[in-house]
């Protein structure tokens, strides 16, 4: 596959934005400036970006508890996300969702999800809309290796196969579910999906180019009525399950090795296809990202909290006939 410099800069920017966004929120969280629970995506950036670069705002994704990378790659506004992480009134969910529920209908982002396995049925529904309206949109469900065991995921694989939905099951296999190492050998998750009768592959999820090329085909299949595809992308969870997890259950050596070898951004920059990228332009992107984040963090922390009466708003569009 040929890559224009524009594509490469875009990929870099998106991965780097995810990375820096998360490093920034980790720092703020550690200082007690952000509430709730935060699950950091670092180590998996090539997946979100390699997938979402094939999607427009009209396509759909359903995300997980580890959703920041998906949101950013799908184009959610950074400042609105930060406002939400800080649970502010002008957050993307008005402070009611927090980190684990960021959603943006305008961007086809159907929500992070705090229920493991909660997303795939919803993504199947979005794919059903696309199929019914015959509009060529596709829908992607991101699924952790732990989540892949949930019954809801199996049911969605089946429904997608039977109805030939334009859907992609994007498994992110980072080998851990919370504090427990996965007993599944690599490839098993794809094999399970493949057994439903859909194309299924296992790939290196730390390599942007592999993800991007695999998805080109899967997205095309979906758009042209070829039905669902499953992709198991192997990746590394760089940090703990949530921010603050001391990872007692993981040896220091394993963590060090993971961090040394599994950085998708390093891998990307060292790839031969990136050899002509201009260091000045990379530096400019980095600087732009820092200024976006500086401004967004500053605004988010200073912004207004919701007022207590907002507790009651938005449960229904209209419950007792009142107009919203």
């Amino acid at each position, binding site marked *: 596959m040929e890559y224009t410099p524009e594509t490469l800069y875009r990929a870099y920017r998106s991965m780097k934005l995810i990375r820096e966004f998360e490093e920034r929120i980790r720092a703020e969280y550690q200082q007690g400036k952000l509430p709730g629970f935060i699950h950091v995506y670092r180590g998996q950036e090539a997946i979100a970006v390699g997938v979402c670069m094939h999607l427009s705002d009209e396509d759909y994704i359903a995300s997980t508890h580890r959703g920041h990378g998906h949101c950013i790659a799908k184009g959610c506004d950074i400042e609105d996300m930060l406002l939400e992480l800080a649970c502010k009134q002008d957050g993307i969910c008005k402070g009611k969702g927090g980190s684990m529920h960021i959603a943006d209908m305008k961007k086809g982002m159907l929500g992070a999800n705090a229920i493991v396995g909660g997303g795939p049925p919803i993504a199947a529904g979005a794919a059903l809309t696309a199929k019914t309206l015959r509009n060529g949109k596709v829908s992607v469900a991101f699924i952790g290796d732990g989540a892949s065991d949930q019954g809801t995921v199996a049911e969605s694989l089946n*429904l997608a196969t039977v109805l030939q939905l334009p859907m992609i099951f994007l498994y992110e296999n980072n080998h851990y579910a919370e504090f427990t190492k996965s007993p599944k050998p690599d490839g098993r998750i794809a094999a399970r999906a493949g057994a439903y009768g859909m194309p299924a592959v296992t790939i290196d999820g730390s390599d942007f180019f592999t993800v991007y090329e695999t998805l080109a085909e899967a997205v095309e299949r979906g758009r042209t009525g070829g039905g669902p595809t499953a992709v198991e992308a192997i990746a590394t969870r760089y940090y703990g399950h949530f921010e603050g997890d001391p990872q007692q259950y993981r040896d220091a050596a394993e963590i060090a090795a993971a961090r040394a070898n599994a950085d998708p951004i390093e891998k990307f920059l060292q790839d031969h296809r990136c050899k002509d990228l201009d260091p000045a332009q990379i530096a400019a992107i980095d600087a732009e990202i820092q200024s976006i984040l500086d401004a967004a963090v500053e605004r988010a922390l200073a912004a207004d909290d919701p007022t207590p009466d907002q507790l009651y708003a938005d449960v229904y569009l209209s419950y007792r006939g009142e107009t919203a």
Partner: protein
Amino acid sequence: MSNLSIREAINKTLHEEMARDERVILIGEDVASEGGGAYGVSIGLAEAFGKLRVIDTPITESAIIGAAGGAALTGLRPVAELMFIDFLGVCLDQLMNQIAKFRYMFGGRASTPVTIRTMIGSGMGTGPQHSAILYPLLVAIPGIKVVAPSNAYDAKGLLAQAIRDDDPVVFCEHKAIYTEKCEVPDEPYTIPFGKARTVREGTDVTVVAFSRMVLLARDVADSLRSQGISVEVIDPRTLSPLDDEAILASVQKTGRLVVLDEANPYCSMASEVSSIIAEKGFDYLDAPIRKVTAPHTPVPASPILERAYLPSLAEIEAAIRATVNY
């Protein structure tokens, strides 16, 4: 006007709403089968609207309900069939934590116009795992609306409202009253949610009843009338939102309240209505509020035990008399 059964009224409404709005689809197990699903409710729809809009699925309730929710979030107005409400156990998450909460979690920036049709209730010999009521569990969930018609006229207007409503609605069809008939207008109409219907006017005691229990309440009211006891029967029709005001106004008039619910007793709609009046209508009350419900047992298979399970006319009459004579 036509004389239609509840089943026919629901079927007709599905036809009308699917014709009216092509974003309406029907999805569920066997819904496109020639027989029109397990109880014949969707008969003729697949023939009329095609299998792209009337969709048979595998036996995967989480995927069905979740996909209906996801489709609603993205532009369709799906009607999903959960064959028996007893199957909530295998798909509750998609309803309770996903569909019901999208709007709230997403800061009001999403709506989920999905209708879930489901069968409730005992009386048909369907045994311990196919006869539950379970709507109290749904009423407890913020973000969904719960409807339970007791006649064909209401069934038609409430189902049309459910499908056109922009919030998620669970529409509970009692399997033992599908054949109940009444006059139903031929043209489409909607009935607003949260408005009770006064089934019988009366002055001595208020009886609030849900779903099939409305028919029993009406019969008891009619028989007591001839014995000089004037019973007001109220059918809230929608359980969430509930028309507290109508109930309160009636109790203000009668001073007495009996609540009938086929659900198991604890944390039931009977408990809910009673507690609302015990708080807001205390001064109107001249007697204890009585609840008549099924017992705290599963629904037994034996027809004799199943009959004993369901609140009977005699039990209802006794509760009303005790309340009136208090």
